[in-house]
């Protein structure tokens, strides 16, 4: 099937489950492992990632297809994407800071972290490689962000409980056991592959 004909909704669900950006593409691992110790910040960071990926995906699509392709500057895509993402997070951070202190404290403090989150840049690179249309990239951005948020919330929930209830071998404590748990979550997500599949 031609990729342009895939319904955006299919892409949305595939991005959450079978093509989960964290569990199958391993993007955004650094902040995933560092922040997932605590449930509340995990949800905050997850929300921020959903927000940023939903908006930067179509922005990057526009920059790539309307600005870089007409001038044959595709090789500049990395720099263009990184500038779009950095500028977007910077502007949103300033806006949020002005508008609401509460929102800033729950969402805003995570925005600088997101500039170097590879999940956001990965999103932009995938939508170029897979040749999505504008609608499909919005769906993909939203889906990838949601999938990432889902994974980090799940891991944080498990880690918080494990800390209280169980003992881990000292050498595996922290990142080691977090990786193993993530591996098991990833196996569970493979179970979705019968439902939707995109490449």
């Amino acid at each position, binding site marked *: 099937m031609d990729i342009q004909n895939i319904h955006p909704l299919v892409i949305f669900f595939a991005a959450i489950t079978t093509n989960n950006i964290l*569990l*199958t*593409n*391993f*993007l*955004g*691992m*650094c902040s995933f*492992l*560092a922040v997932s110790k605590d449930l509340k910040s995990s949800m905050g960071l997850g929300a921020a990632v959903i927000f940023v990926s939903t908006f930067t995906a179509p922005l990057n699509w526009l920059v790539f297809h309307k600005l870089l392709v007409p001038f044959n500057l595709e*090789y*500049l*895509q*990395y*720099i263009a994407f*990184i500038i779009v993402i*950095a500028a977007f997070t910077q502007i949103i951070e300033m806006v949020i800071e002005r508008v609401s202190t509460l929102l800033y404290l729950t969402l805003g403090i995570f925005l600088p972290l997101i*500039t*170097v*989150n*590879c999940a956001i*840049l*990965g999103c932009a*690179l*995938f939508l170029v*490689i897979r040749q999505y249309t504008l609608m499909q990239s919005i769906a993909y951005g939203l889906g990838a962000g949601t999938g990432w948020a889902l994974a980090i919330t799940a891991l944080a929930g498990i880690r918080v409980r494990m800390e209280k209830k169980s003992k881990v*071998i*000292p*050498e*595996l404590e922290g*990142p*080691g*056991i977090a*990786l*193993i748990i*993530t*591996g*098991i979550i*990833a*196996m569970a997500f*493979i179970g979705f592959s019968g439902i939707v599949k995109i490449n």
Partner: protein
Amino acid sequence: MSTGPAKGMNALKRMLWDENPVIGQILGICSALAVTNLVKNTLVMCLGLIFTLMMSCLTVSLLRNVIPRRVRMIVQVLVIAAYVIFIKIVLDAYLPEISNELGPYVGLIITNCIVMGRTEGYAMGNKPVDAVLDGIGAGIGYSLVLLPIAMIREPLGLGTFFGIQVLPSDWTRWNMMVIAPSGFFALATFIWVVRAFKTSGAKR
């Protein structure tokens, strides 16, 4: 380290074991998991990262007195991105197949936390020679983790090594080893083994 930043060859050496970026600082995990199902891709990725680290540490260190503090992050990212574009172009020209398979992961060297961590944490405050050694050390330290993992995953998963059949052809492939979850398990096991070594070394 409490005795101030390491200089010279020490800057390189400490990155290999004591302060290994992947095992010690848990940085650069994304690509450590994603490309390690094939030895060939891993090798290309490691060489790319060593090159990027070396060149961006050098550039940032040379420019360290010129870059205004407020915009230093964005300057560093742009320096890194420039070198990554260079790698991408070279790969596309000489190894188009591998470039295709690595897909977005070459571009993602830009957001690889190791590069950013070294330029921000070391190159911004040290002389070019030390910065280059530090960068090379971090790159080699990264490769020292990725290559063994790839060398375990590829033979078990596909029965091949560097694309050449090494195990008997009736070898039952562990498909598990080349798909996503095993990446997590392999890296966790590796961290476990290395930390066990470190603690037993410390006891002695």
